[in-house]
């Protein structure tokens, strides 16, 4: 008989009209890495939040190490040895790593002694799992990969035996993700149990021992990883065949829609973020920008979208230099009016107002559109109709246009932004990490939409850290490293190896 670290039986949870979890039962073996997959809004995060005491289940029972327990808040979860790394990190930016780790578990009224012990313990954990975290670094100055390791440390420091990670790799570069998996394997070796929520089937196949598949709040399958393959999992998840390949016909591109000439951007400290960029995006082509994140891709998108002024250079759009345009409105608004749409990389900070309902978010930036507003007043009917249209087309769940966007699951938030920008039918679409946090069914759909847009003669500039995505969609691939374009490859000739070299900064 296997020992179970966690047993969930009949867990249900309802938020208003939405049944987020319905009679969920699952068993998680001790010392295993257990994957949970499922479509956006399937209830994965909710289920784990219940296990971590953040929400209370409406019904059902939880057993930890065979003991039936009630988990009323996070403290109780911590006491039971459950730790969680949230989708959004829960760290105090102005604190050091050490301070973040001892917070809530200071071990006494005074800090000194507890901190000292924590430091020793931390260095030990650092060594055991090769985490490479500096205890005295300010958390706000660390990159996402390291911040995530701080979260893991926090959980381990509190004696977590079960570690829950909610889409940990969504924000990581492939290298960081590899490192994370080494850490997770080391944890398993030490007898810890890991629960991993992810949308990436490759990761599931690589690292998990067993998988639970969820759909619409229920469990639709419990399988051993060794007994399935990606296709089978995709089937289970979406309930139909998903093609993981994008069908794309050869197509001759038209005239240049965007041309960038000698574009430079230097930050306040004199660091060159963009360094002499030259490239074109033509009508009817998708140009992919590959690269390890943090090599200028984000800045490039921001410049092209009019959010940041470059230090020098030309941005020509339909053969006019956009930077010379004078207008009383903000640059980003002007660009948008001219037919440049932008899906920002960080949807929750730059793409949405989380406290607004979905229908208001559905027109952000397009509020002057004649079909929805007249003489400065919105037609609520038209707004709602458009939003319902988005919901239907993009399969946004739940299908309630009035819901606060912040309450949507991560992937569904992304769909709202995408729907809005694609609906604008732009001549040029700037799109960053289009499928971050999105389930495979939706990825298939989004990829299809992008190809349709291209076939309709639109120009698309795609930034993604997912090489597979770049390879699947692009007609041409530019690789960025250190703010420069280190190479250009035709999609047909590209492969992971040559791209990898260019991403490392080796020039062609």
């Amino acid at each position: 008989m296997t020992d179970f670290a966690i047993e969930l039986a009949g867990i249900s949870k309802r938020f208003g009209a939405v049944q987020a979890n319905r009679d969920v039962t699952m068993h998680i073996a001790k010392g295993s890495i257990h994957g949970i997959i499922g479509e956006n809004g399937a209830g994965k995060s909710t289920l784990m939040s219940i296990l971590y005491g953040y929400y209370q289940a409406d019904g059902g029972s939880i057993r930890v190490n065979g003991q039936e327990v009630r988990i009323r808040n996070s403290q109780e979860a911590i006491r039971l040895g459950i730790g969680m790394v949230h989708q959004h990190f829960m760290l105090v930016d102005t604190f050091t790593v050490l301070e973040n780790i001892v917070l809530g578990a200071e071990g006494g009224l005074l800090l000194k002694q507890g901190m000292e012990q924590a430091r020793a313990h931390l260095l030990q954990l650092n060594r055991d799992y090769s985490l490479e975290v500096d205890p005295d670094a300010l958390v706000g100055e660390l990159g996402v990969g390291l911040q995530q390791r701080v979260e893991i440390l926090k959980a381990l420091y509190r004696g977590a035996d079960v570690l829950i990670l909610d889409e940990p790799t969504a924000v990581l570069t492939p290298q960081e993700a590899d490192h994370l998996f080494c850490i997770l394997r080391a944890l398993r070796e030490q007898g810890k149990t890991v629960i991993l929520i992810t949308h990436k089937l490759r990761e599931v196949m690589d690292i998990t021992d067993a998988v639970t598949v969820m759909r619409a709040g229920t469990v639709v399958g419990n399988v051993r990883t060794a007994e399935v393959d990606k296709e089978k999992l995709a089937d289970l998840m979406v309930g139909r065949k998903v093609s993981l390949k994008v069908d794309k016909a050869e197509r001759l591109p038209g005239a240049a829609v965007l041309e960038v000439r000698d574009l430079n951007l230097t930050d306040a400290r004199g660091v060159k973020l963009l360094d002499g960029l030259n490239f074109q995006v033509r009508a009817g082509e998708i140009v992919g920008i590959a690269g390890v994140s943090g090599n200028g891709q984000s800045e490039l998108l921001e410049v092209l979208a009019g959010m940041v002024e470059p230090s020098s250079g030309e941005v020509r759009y339909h053969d006019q230099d956009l930077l010379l345009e004078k207008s009383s409105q903000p640059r980003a608004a002007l660009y948008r009016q001219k037919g440049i749409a932008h899906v920002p990389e960080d949807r929750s900070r730059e793409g949405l107002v989380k406290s607004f309902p979905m229908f208001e978010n559905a027109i952000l930036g397009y509020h002057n559109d004649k079909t929805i507003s007249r003489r400065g007043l919105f037609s609520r009917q038209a707004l709602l109709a458009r939003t319902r249209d988005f919901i239907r087309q993009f399969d946004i769940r739940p299908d309630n246009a009035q819901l606060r966007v912040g309450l949507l699951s991560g992937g569904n938030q992304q769909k709202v932004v995408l729907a809005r920008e694609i609906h604008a039918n732009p001549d040029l679409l700037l799109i960053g990490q289009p499928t971050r946090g999105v389930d495979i069914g939706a990825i298939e759909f989004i990829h299809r939409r992008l190809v349709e847009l291209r076939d309709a003669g639109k120009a698309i500039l795609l930034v993604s850290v997912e090489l597979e995505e770049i390879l699947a969609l692009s007609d041409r691939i530019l690789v960025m490293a250190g703010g420069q374009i280190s190479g250009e490859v035709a999609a047909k000739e590209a492969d992971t190896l040559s791209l990898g070299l260019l991403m490392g900064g080796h020039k062609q």
Partner: protein
Amino acid sequence: MEQWLSLLDSTIRVATPLVLAALAGMFSERSGVVDIGLEGKMLVAAFASGAAAFVTHSPWLGLLAGVMAAVSMAMVHAFVSVTYNGNQLISGMAINTIASGITPVLALAWFQQGGNTPQLDDDSRFHDITLPFADALSNVPVIGQLYSKLLSGHSVLVYLTIIIIPLVSWVVYRSRFGLRLRAVGENPHAADTAGVSVARVRYIALFWGGVLCGMAGTFLSVYQTGSFIKEMTAGKGFLALAALIFGKWRPLPAVSGCLLFAFADALQIRLEGVDLPVIGQIPSQAIQVIPYVLTVLLLAGFVGRAVAPKAIGVPFVKSR
């Protein structure tokens, strides 16, 4: 020398209530609760302590009453803004309005002296204390003079404040409560998931803020003037808030801000009616405005960007 010493001496007197109020504000604001009600809490405390000291003939019972009054106002603020997630600015404003309304009304009803409390007799007031050996040392140059003229000869409240300053700084940076306080003001969600009760920390912070405001108010009525006078706080709460921002919400720099304002104030009193070379006599209105001009200048220009605790003013609601 004599002149400088007496200038610094009055700086200390003026600074004491400011320092107490600024530290009070530091507790609440570091926990993420905006505290524009410092003024009102001080005023209520000044009244309660003045009245209680008059009735009981004990300055200490006055202090107790002052602290209790300010703490109860602070708890109202906590109830509205922590328990009920209300708007902290409005709640603070309400405290100020209530304080300036209720104190003269009660004073009039109880003492019939035009909204003030009766003058306290000597036994019911805090007095200046002469520290040991002060007289003997007063002839020793510099050190002795500093000791006897500057350090000695203040009220017990001043000495308490001098002890409180390092204590508060120590609590904020070296104690468990301090760590939690700073975390809750910066990212309450992080604190919450780490197992810290956000509401509890905020209540405790506001409580201690109330205690300090109570001391500040008592200083004004039971020590400085010897009675409660209508609106006697005269913007000191806001000045303390400015000093807090000037000090970027850190205890010691905030205290220096208070000292700076107090120095300007002491200087102003000194300059009044004095004939300066070339300029002649400066109109008193121009002089009285010095501390306020200083405030504006400091806050506008010299401080640099003041980075407030990130979660300040935002009620903590557990949701995504």
